[in-house]
């Protein structure tokens, strides 16, 4: 995992769905960190309400393992540009993921960069 230092992809893109999911508590995640990038191989991508489930095979200093991430709702991803079939098992994708507060594996996917470069 690495921190992405630049102003990063349109900030609005990352922030846009905020209002819609605000009523779901995301207390496990540090949502103030909005530039944490994680790249991995998709093992599962289940776009659902109220939250999407994403499992990535990630390789970093701790080794290679499957990590589960929570994401915005299917409806919010849809409005941000996601469409059915855009993320498939085996794809290499990048998440902008707010990390867990306790530093354990996982995070909250504020945004996704699909294998073809589509951002949502």
């Amino acid at each position, binding site marked *: 995992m690495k921190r992405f230092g630049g102003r990063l992809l349109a900030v609005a893109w990352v922030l846009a769905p905020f209002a819609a999911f605000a009523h*779901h508590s995301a207390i496990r995640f540090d949502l103030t960190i909005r530039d944490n990038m994680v790249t991995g191989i998709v093992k599962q991508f289940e776009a659902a309400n*109220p939250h999407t489930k994403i499992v990535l095979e990630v390789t970093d200093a701790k080794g290679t393992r499957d990590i589960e991430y929570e994401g915005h709702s299917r409806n919010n991803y849809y409005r941000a540009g996601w469409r059915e079939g855009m993320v498939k098992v085996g794809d290499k994708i990048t998440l902008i993921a707010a990390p867990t507060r306790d530093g354990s594996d996982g995070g909250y996917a504020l945004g996704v960069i699909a294998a073809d470069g589509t951002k949502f």
Partner: protein
Amino acid sequence: MIETWGLARVGAVVFGLSIAGAAAAAPDFTGVWGNYRAPGSAAPQRGAPQAPLPLRPDAKAKVDAYHALVDPIGDSPGGHCLGTGMPGSMLGSGGYPMEIVQHDNVILVVFEAHAEIRRIYLGERAKAEDLFPDRNGYSFGRWEGDKLIVETTHLKEAVDQARYPHSENAKIVEEYSLVANDDGTKVLTSKMTMTDPEFYTQPITAEKKWQLQPGVRLLPYECNEPAWEEHLERLRQAQNDG
């Protein structure tokens, strides 16, 4: 001359009544609505400090106990596909849009989030013995000129409201009005007063604005599908194991 003046007065009165009558016509709230943001204004900040609520000690103890239970794991009704209920269903809507369908005898408010529906009945009020407590309660409305006044009772006690927890005896009165901005944007405003002497030392007031979102459609919000699939999988496992 006097008669002419008199007719003119009568005419003016009739004209005035006509205008008053037109002004009193119920506006149509039908459409899809999202959070209102004034032109040029910044996006709302998450986690902005909220003023403490004037909760009575017993009520505060209940609310604190609830938060001590769920906050460490980030649980919430919405996380379990449960609708928010009043007043949060209205005050919190807009990130996910809400659709209003207005009929003469009932106004349907369909919230995309959790596919929650609120009904505001007009005309004949239901008998008290036919009602039972519900997260959105029983809402009865009446038109006062171009304003819709809605009274909501028969709520369940809800310590899990994100902002305004309440007892089952809470009463919510909302005043809805519709205006068009200079740029043509239609803005719906709700001024809410919640009276709940069991929970609060004084009435709670809040205001919420939405803007019409032409071309936006509500999306389906199936939420229990994964839980149902997991249940089916457990049944299959049990069947195979048996």
